[in-house]
């Protein structure tokens, strides 16, 4: 019983972070129809920036989070507006290869600037024990913040003018353009929001795990899996996908070991794709 509770608690914590990792990626994919290979680097970049702000400048990660999110928004917005927008209508291979190329550049300079050493912000807030389940406080804080950020994005998409415009473009780009929405601007802002969520999530991750630049692929992989499980471009989808993956990995990690937990995620995704080739909640005709 206690083991089950512990697995569930770990799954919830992991799931909240996965949802936060994937939600920006899913938004970009759903709205722009672009797989953003930069997403993993954005996350690690956020984590590194939070770490160095904390270690060298003494800024608390909760404070730096807002600044980092803003900086990454600018980076994402600029990349989309200046570069990706120009080929965004081309086939999958082109946009995917382009973001991969951009990722190599970002990754290279990030590694040069920060080195590949694993970095972790150690806040040392102690543990909480509840019903025999032990959970470090910093993890709980990260989880709550991850959920709060995801919820905030949901609220923005739901009720702000900008959010409605993004949703409109996602549903029917041409119709949205005819309604006077500047699709190129919405694309750039959406990509910026994707980067913003990645950066914020990265600084939260750095509080919980050591973050290193060799983890970019790992984060990207998680985002893929969550999107396939939960469906594209919707916040609730990312949440469902993230939590499912969190619980599955937490259980698999306990029974099979951490190495196989990752394999299970991928195998699950492939099986899902095989039965539902356009994704679980796949939009018809959405490449």
């Amino acid at each position, binding site marked *: 019983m206690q083991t089950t509770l512990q697995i569930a608690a770990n799954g919830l914590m992991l799931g909240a972070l996965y949802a936060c990792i994937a939600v920006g990626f899913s938004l970009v994919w759903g709205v722009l129809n672009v797989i953003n290979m930069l997403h993993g680097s954005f996350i690690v970049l956020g984590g590194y920036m939070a770490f160095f702000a904390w270690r060298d400048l003494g800024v608390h990660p909760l404070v730096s989070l807002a600044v980092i999110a803003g900086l990454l928004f600018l980076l994402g917005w600029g990349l989309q507006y200046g570069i990706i*927008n120009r080929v965004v209508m081309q086939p999958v*291979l082109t946009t995917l290869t382009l973001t991969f*190329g951009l990722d190599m*550049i970002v990754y290279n300079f990030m590694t040069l600037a920060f080195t590949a050493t694993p970095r972790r912000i150690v806040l040392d807030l102690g543990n909480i024990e509840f019903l025999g389940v032990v959970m470090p406080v910093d993890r709980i804080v990260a989880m709550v913040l991850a959920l709060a950020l995801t919820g905030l994005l949901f609220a923005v998409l739901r009720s702000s003018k900008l959010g409605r415009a993004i949703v409109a473009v996602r549903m029917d780009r041409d119709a949205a*353009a005819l309604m006077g929405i500047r*699709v190129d601007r919405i694309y750039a802002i959406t990509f910026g929001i994707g980067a913003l969520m990645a950066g914020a999530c990265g600084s939260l991750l750095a509080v919980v795990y050591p973050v290193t630049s060799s983890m970019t692929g790992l984060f990207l992989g998680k985002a893929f899996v969550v999107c396939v499980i939960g469906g594209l471009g919707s916040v609730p989808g990312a949440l469902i996908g993230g939590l499912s993956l969190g619980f599955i990995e937490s259980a698999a990690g306990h029974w099979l070991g951490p190495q196989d937990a990752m394999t299970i995620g*991928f195998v699950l995704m492939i099986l899902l794709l095989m039965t539902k080739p356009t994704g679980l909640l796949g939009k018809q005709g959405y490449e």
Partner: protein
Amino acid sequence: MRSSAFFILSMLVLAAAPFIADNYVVRLCTFLCMYAALALSWNFIGGYAGYPSFATAGFFGLGAYAGALTQNLGFWLPLPWLFATVVVALFAAGLGFAILRMKGHYFAIGSISIVEILRLLASSWAQLTGGGDGLNVRILPGGPDYAGRVFLYSMMAVMIAAFITMLCVDRSRLGFGLRCIKQNEDAADMIGIDVTSYKTAAFTLSAMYCGTIGAIYASWVAYIDPSDAFSILLTLKVPVMTLLGGPGTVYGPILGAWVFVLLEEMIWAKFLEYNRAILGAVIVLLIFALPGGLLRMQWRRKWPSSVFGLPGLNRLKESR
């Protein structure tokens, strides 16, 4: 005509390399053949059928392990390579039926996760593969000069085989049908093309020679580990080479692979720290300056402007 003369000439130069140049050049030539064969293979699925496959490293790695393990059992050399070819072809044919139902991004992800799953399997199945510690492969006896020649000519043979296969496909019903599928899969289905079989054939062809190449590579370097055999960088580099040369053309993949490998050798070795950034910049420039590849060179005069004008949208929609 000119390109075929150039092709034959360059084959002769490659074949003569061991007699006129040192081991470094022979090694470079072996890489030229290896990547050209991989890029040609990718062309079947990516260039002709238009499916963005990122499974190359999966086939390469599977071939490497299949070859290395049979070679370590003591089989005489070309046999493990043939075995690897058959294993990978069967694997791809079986896999194709399942993952070729996916389209676009989903197919890209599906194919890339094949690489991930195979790599994780190779890491965790340590009794068989040596896990993360890697696997030593028996070294070919006869000294480095002799081995260098054997591996160069073997890689070259596979490249030529892949090239001839590509020529045959290009002129056959299969090639024509694949081009139809690339342009409009539903319409291809409607005019009597058995799209599932055609795509599976293209996928299998794209895998088969990767398996052979992987096995030869394993014998050549005499040591493989999961992150080398199932390298994500390899799986992305090969499509980029084909895009660089001209996807869907016969000579494009070879040209692209050679230009890429030579660039890598000449420039990046001197800027080790900026290796990835330079490769990334090449990719970005390639997409903007050479959208059709080197073979269909039409340098764009200016940076393309944003593509959101409504007439553009309508044109795209109608052409679907």
